[in-house]
């Protein structure tokens, strides 16, 4: 692998979930033809952003190998991830780790919290002795701002949401991964405790030289943390690129509406216009043209039939919309 090989490359990834029905097989297309890269030369934070149903969590599970794609490829440092998981899964697991949304669900209620840390140490053979193990545990707990007395021997319900989440991050750090997939890591944590966890992630990016794939619906947090952002709508990428640029200067009509709808914590700058309503549940079959066709204020006949291509409109800012390609 050379400097130019991306850390993670997703190519034409598609995932369809079968929905019941013995005779008439119906599918829910959660992810459709998604392609993007995370660069490998220096650690960076890329956000997969979108509302519920956008496919962002499905993409993260595909990357982690917890579910398998319908079609498409995922390459980690140039190697096919599915192949790696079949023949060399420990290597992949050491390099790519994850933190999930619900801190308490990440723990098996039958065991104490520290078991979460000991299992990977044992399976990845990260320590040669008991004292080594202890030292390693203290090291990762310290990196997330916790002490071992606070954590060792306790059951999950004895920790606060913020503490529990920090422990799950500490667990992910143990094998020194190059990529951390963080799926809504703060959305179930109290607001006053979120800053601590977000700042821990920023800190770890520097200290542990780790890239982060951050999955969220909260664009304010995405703005704060990320270098790059990928905006999803119903399984397709509609806009992507440099996070600051995309969020402060969105081009895709969907992304524009989304960003305008974010409540601003400033009473002097309130929403001025009213926005139009959301439609009834979109029918699954209507996926021929642009994914946003039915709700787009700029929609044209072309949008109904043709899926727009991803076009670079400025440096590191890509949009898939017919309105810009006249």
């Amino acid at each position: 692998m050379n400097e130019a090989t991306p850390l993670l490359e997703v190519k034409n990834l598609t995932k369809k979930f079968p929905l019941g029905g013995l005779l008439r097989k119906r599918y829910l297309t959660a992810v459709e033809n998604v392609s993007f890269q995370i660069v490998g030369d220096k650690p960076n934070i890329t956000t997969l952003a979108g509302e519920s149903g956008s496919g962002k969590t499905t993409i993260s599970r595909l990357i982690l190998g917890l579910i398998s794609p319908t079609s498409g490829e995922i390459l980690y440092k140039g190697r096919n991830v599915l192949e790696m998981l079949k023949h060399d899964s420990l290597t992949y697991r050491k390099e790519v780790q994850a933190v999930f949304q619900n801190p308490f669900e990440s723990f098996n209620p039958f065991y104490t919290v520290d078991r979460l840390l000991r299992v990977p140490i044992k399976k990845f053979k990260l320590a040669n002795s008991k004292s080594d193990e202890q030292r390693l545990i203290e090291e990762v707990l310290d990196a997330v701002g916790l002490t071992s007395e606070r954590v060792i021997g306790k059951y999950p319900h004895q920790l606060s949401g913020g503490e529990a989440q920090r422990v799950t991050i500490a667990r992910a750090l143990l094998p020194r991964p190059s990529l951390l997939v963080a799926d809504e890591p703060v959305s179930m944590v109290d607001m006053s405790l979120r800053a601590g966890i977000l700042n821990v992630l920023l800190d770890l990016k520097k200290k542990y030289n780790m890239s982060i794939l951050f999955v969220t619906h909260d664009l304010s947090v995405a703005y704060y943390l990320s270098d790059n952002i990928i905006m999803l709508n119903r399984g397709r990428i509609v806009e992507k690129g440099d996070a600051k640029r995309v969020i402060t200067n969105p081009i895709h009509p969907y992304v524009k509406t989304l960003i305008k709808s974010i409540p601003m914590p400033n009473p002097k700058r309130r929403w001025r216009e009213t926005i139009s309503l959301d439609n009834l549940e979109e029918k699954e079959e209507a996926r021929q043209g642009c994914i946003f066709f039915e709700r787009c204020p700029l929609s044209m006949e072309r949008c109904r039939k043709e899926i727009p291509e991803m076009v670079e409109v400025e440096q590191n800012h890509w949009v898939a919309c017919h309105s810009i390609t006249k």
Partner: protein
Amino acid sequence: MSYIKVRFRNAIKTLMGNKKFFAGLTMLVLISFVGYSAYIFQIPFPKFGSVPPFRKPSRQFLLGTDGLGRDLFAVLLYSIQTSLYIGFTAGIIGTAIGILVGFVGGYKGGLTDHVLRSITDIFLVIPLWPLLILISASVRSLSIPVMASLLAAFSWQGSARAIRSQVMSLKEREFVNIARLSGLGTFEILFKEILPNMIPYVASGFVMSVTGAILTEAALEIIGLGPPGATSIGLMLYWSQQFAATVKGWWWWLVPPIIVLILIFIALFLILLGLDEISNPRLRKA
């Protein structure tokens, strides 16, 4: 692994702390002790014609003798052994099968689950009684191990279903995904992540299997389908019927086995209630 030991010790403390469980377990242990005390007091297995028949209870024959020339007290003791043995054997085999079927089907899903579920459902649908009657009629007599196996063959379905649905919901839990990301394999996940959370279900299922087996066995024997050479509580009741002991007022033929059966049932039921209380904290006295 030391957290398993700690967990185990805590579990024993919790179990013993629960009044119902403790009471039930104590009763069961006492009853078994009574049954197996035959060996301590060197009471031999009651053979037919070993003593004069139709005797009333006396100092020599505490519960009298039956119509086949056996000391009823000895019969009772050995009957307890048999009933408990059959019940527990059927229970263990049944639960083991149930766990296997439930685990594999629940975790694997897809075709495997479909096949296993169909097998389970077929067994559930087969009417147990007519089948056992047919078998008995054609085979004349069932040896004890065979009867226990048959009972087991029809007692695993309940466990299998309950375990399967528990496994299906547990495997979707986030901590199972975390376990996979931490490098654990399928079997490790089943036994170290999922099974510990299923212990209450497995335990309750086991107790229910045992209860069902003991009662079913007794019921079969009362109507005359049991192994005649052996002695069990059901058979004691069967012979009482055959000799019309009720009509003749020979209560010592009937009452002791019925009391023992009821006590065994109460003991198992208390254990079940205790387990329920422990695993569902909301049932504990608030």
